[in-house]
């Protein structure tokens, strides 16, 4: 993969607003046929980065290349963008609204109508085509916005918190479409602060915190490099052992099991032995990969 030209390449890109650094020296490579996760807490610089990629704002320094070329207004037509802050014209009919946004991307004619019908059917909103946006629920509006981002069949799709506020069924629906687009060779940049979501959908990630890149690479490799130092277990008793900070650095209770991040230097075998010695009943004991959330918290902790 890394031998081909990246769809999006940021090279030491910096953007400041007055004294405040929004993005510092950020370098990114996102490739076709993959989902690139732009992750980080609110205010990390994700939206500013995206705005520079879609050519809404310009970086103060550094280079941005799209499809191997310097960005131009023309290249904007190959990008689909679903911003985090998004809206529709309240009084405009849904069908016309989508058509308007499509024409702004230079797609027109009969083809547009065909695609509008196709996608409205796909997100199960066909009967809303002639309705005004103000009559739609928030979730429906969000699906419409999603359609406007993909209707012109962009090669690069940028989604900023696409699932926020959606019910699980619609999240599944959109996820399915995103994965189809990925399979069709599109490049997808997926920005979110929800690590659990990113974990399920991203191939590559870049963790941002306070304008700085904390970590990036293939999700698979990142997880492996952090090793299997977490344990999922179902246990009765042994609470004193679990509270021992020499063994356990972090403990998370779920409804039917606890997840444990082992303290540095401690081994899973030690933990199991101690639990047995404490006469606890262990019904599940499994080594698991750390969650992206754990990795993130750990990395931010290192920096801070």
């Amino acid at each position, binding site marked *: 993969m890394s031998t081909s030209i990246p769809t999006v390449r940021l090279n030491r890109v910096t953007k400041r607003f007055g004294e405040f650094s929004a993005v510092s020296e950020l370098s990114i490579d996102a490739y076709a046929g993959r989902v690139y996760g732009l992750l980080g807490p609110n205010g990390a610089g994700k939206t500013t980065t995206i705005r520079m990629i879609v050519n*809404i*704002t310009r970086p103060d320094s550094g280079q941005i290349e799209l499809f191997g070329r310097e960005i131009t207004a023309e290249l*904007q037509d190959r990008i689909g*963008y679903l911003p985090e*802050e998004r809206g529709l*014209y*309240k009084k405009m009919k849904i069908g016309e609204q989508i058509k308007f*946004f499509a024409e*702004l991307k230079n797609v027109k004619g009969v083809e547009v109508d065909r695609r509008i019908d196709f996608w409205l059917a796909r997100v199960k909103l066909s009967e809303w085509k002639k309705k005004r946006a103000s009559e739609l629920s928030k979730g429906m509006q969000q699906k419409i916005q999603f359609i406007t*981002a993909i209707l012109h069949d962009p090669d690069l799709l940028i989604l900023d918190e696409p699932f926020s506020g959606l019910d699980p069924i619609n999240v599944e629906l959109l996820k399915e479409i995103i994965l189809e687009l990925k399979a069709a060779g599109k490049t997808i940049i997926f920005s979110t602060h929800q690590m659990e979501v990113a974990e399920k959908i991203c191939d590559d990630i870049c963790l941002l915190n306070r304008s700085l890149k904390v970590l990036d690479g293939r999700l698979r490799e990142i997880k492996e490099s952090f090793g299997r130092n977490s344990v999922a277990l179902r246990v009765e008793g042994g609470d004193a052992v679990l509270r021992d900070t020499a063994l356990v650095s972090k403990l998370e209770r779920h409804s039917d099991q606890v997840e444990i991040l082992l303290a540095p230097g401690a081994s899973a075998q030690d933990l199991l032995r101690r639990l047995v010695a404490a006469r606890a009943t262990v019904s599940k004991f499994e080594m698991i990969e750390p969650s992206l959330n754990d990795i993130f918290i750990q990395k931010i902790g290192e920096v801070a």
Partner: protein
Amino acid sequence: MRKLYAVVKWEYLQRVRAKLFIVATLLGPFVMSFFAVVPALIFSIDAGGPDRIAVVDQTGRMYRRVEAALAGAETDEDELPSDEPERDAAVTKSDDRSNQLARSQTGNLVLEEAVSAGRSLDEVKRDLNQRISRHEIDGYLVLPADLLEGARAQFFGRHTGDLFKKRRLEDGVSRAVREERLAHANIDANVVKELSRPVDLLSYRVGERGEERDRGEGFILVFACGFVIYLTILIYGQVILGAVIEEKETRIAEILFSSVKPFTLMSGKLIGVSLVALTQLCVWVLTFLGFSLFGVGMLASRGFALNLPHLQPLVYVYFVLFFLLGYFIYSTIYALVGSIVTTAQEGGQLALPIILLLAIGFYLAFPVIRSPDSSLAFWVSMFPFFSPITMLVRIVTQTPPFWQIALSLLIGFGTVVLLAWLASRIYRVGMLMYGKRATIPEAWRWLRQS
């Protein structure tokens, strides 16, 4: 360019198809004439019943004449408080109506003679004052014994603020006094009336079409032109403000900016809405033309003559040009304002000075109509924020030399370019700033940044 076209097209279609637009276009002329006519009507309403007025006649022989004069029995045409200085034999119908109006106004007085019966004037006045406070009468008129020798008549009333009434009393008494004096000198009043028939002043407008009769419609037309431009700029400026704020408030701007350049979007919006406004104006102008071609003739055949001044085709061209000029100057400012505020409410507040500026331009039309050749008229028709209204008013009243019109257009056009440059730079930053309204220093910084 294709994107600009797309923005213009959608902006235009969405608005022209809106029910509100259709209704406003159809009802606009009615609403506007309503606003023009209603204040005049309200002004002329006489809310009270007839005024009961007692007359203390110390001359002892004037009461009958005054009564007759005020009741309008001997209405002299020359003495009527006529608001129509010119008269035309062809328009007898409308003359009749104005006469009736005058009579009914005079008939609005109920006169009685206050008998002094040997009492002193002070006693009589005391008595009448009491009657006023008992609401038996509304006032009384004192005609002193030496009235005919030039003494002043006096009026005492509950309220004396009504200038129309005062003038009516004055006219009536003067007429009575004059007739009495004439009778005294053994001159027949009818002969005098015949001899002193007033000269009508007919005004003609001297233009390239030769002499043209002007009976006041010219003024109304000029006023209407100024008013239509003023109102249309105001309304469509607000449309732009609302549209920009909507795109900012709903965050649509972010999607739009990822597809089109902010400048393209802004100018597309301004152009689209300008076409909407022009569509509306066209409907109105065509209605006006239709009316002046067919309606006037129809009305004339029913005895209601209306002499609409002939407008040269070039005036229509200037009308459109100056409308567009004014529209683009003001709506660009509106777009700028819309991009730095966060809510429609804030926008309304910040737009207030703009409306004020526009209103000043409109009111300046009045001195310009009265003396279209003055240096005031010249300067205000060069100042770009006023010129759309004032220059047009000059063109319609008394067309200034072409170089002045061209210069005014040029200055205006330069202003539009400058404003558009300014606005687009603030717009592109302002549209993506959420949360709070930008201060002037901030806007200034954006201007220099981008």
